[in-house]
């Protein structure tokens, strides 16, 4: 059976779902960040799969590069926030950081 668009979309769906599971259930702030990275990677796979099998141009690849770049910026900011969290609360457990909770 030939590998087509649906195969790649399925892999990407699996990555997305697992990343969402990370984001929803992790108590560790770094675990949540890792889930976000998984979700961004699944979006990239979608971009490239559609660029190859559905539109055929370079637009999808350009957007994939933008996504990677924004993911790098997001990781830098996210890790800085995690470090700030640790300096303030001495932990990165998201259940314990409830100062702003109403």
């Amino acid at each position, binding site marked *: 059976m030939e590998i087509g668009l649906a195969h790649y979309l399925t892999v990407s769906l699996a990555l997305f779902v697992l990343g969402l599971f990370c984001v929803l259930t992790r108590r560790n702030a*770094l*675990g949540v960040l890792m889930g976000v990275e998984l979700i961004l990677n699944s979006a990239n796979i979608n971009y490239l799969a559609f660029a190859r099998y559905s539109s055929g141009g370079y637009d999808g690849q350009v957007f994939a590069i933008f996504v990677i770049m924004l993911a790098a910026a997001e990781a830098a900011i996210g*890790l800085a*926030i995690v470090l700030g969290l640790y300096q303030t609360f001495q932990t990165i457990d998201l259940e314990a950081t409830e100062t702003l909770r109403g």
Partner: protein
Amino acid sequence: MTRCWRPCSNAACATSPSSPAIKKPAVATKRRRLEAMSALVFYLIAGLTIASAIGVAFSRNIVYSAFALMGAFMGAAGLYVMLAADFIAVVQVLVYVGGILVLMLFAVMLTHRIADVRISNRSVGTLPALAIIALLAGVMMKAIFSTTWHAVSPAAAQPTTYGIGDAFLTTYLLPFELASLVLLAALIGAVVLSRKELRAE
């Protein structure tokens, strides 16, 4: 004599370099074998990627999660190669595996005293989350397999660097410049956020 290392639609490419005058059925068999091989490689890489992602999602130790994340990134890079996006695959390896993951391990080491604290990676609310993602996966699977996507037959894989650079400097010039601004702002913001507070004495 050039050798073909990836499947392409060029018929002259599919023949073996040593015997150019091969009969038609042999060419078809060879191409079918190439297709089967690329399918096998796809399943291997996809399996590695999904297995690593499962490791990220369900590992109880944050360091194991980080290493599984590296496997997932490498698998994704392999998928990008199979999608004929060689430049993106290299960028993925450089940026993610070289940059983000090292940064993440760095933060893992910084935020815990490895020796005396057990690094926990516990989860909360697993059952509702499983219900939500099962529902989501069902809906999206249905969407993937019931939609007839607009399809073009994929072109032969060729280097993409020229096209991407051309697009960046013509069509996407403004987003490209904005991206550099965003990166600058993000780096300055990260420095400001992560330095020690000096005033509260």
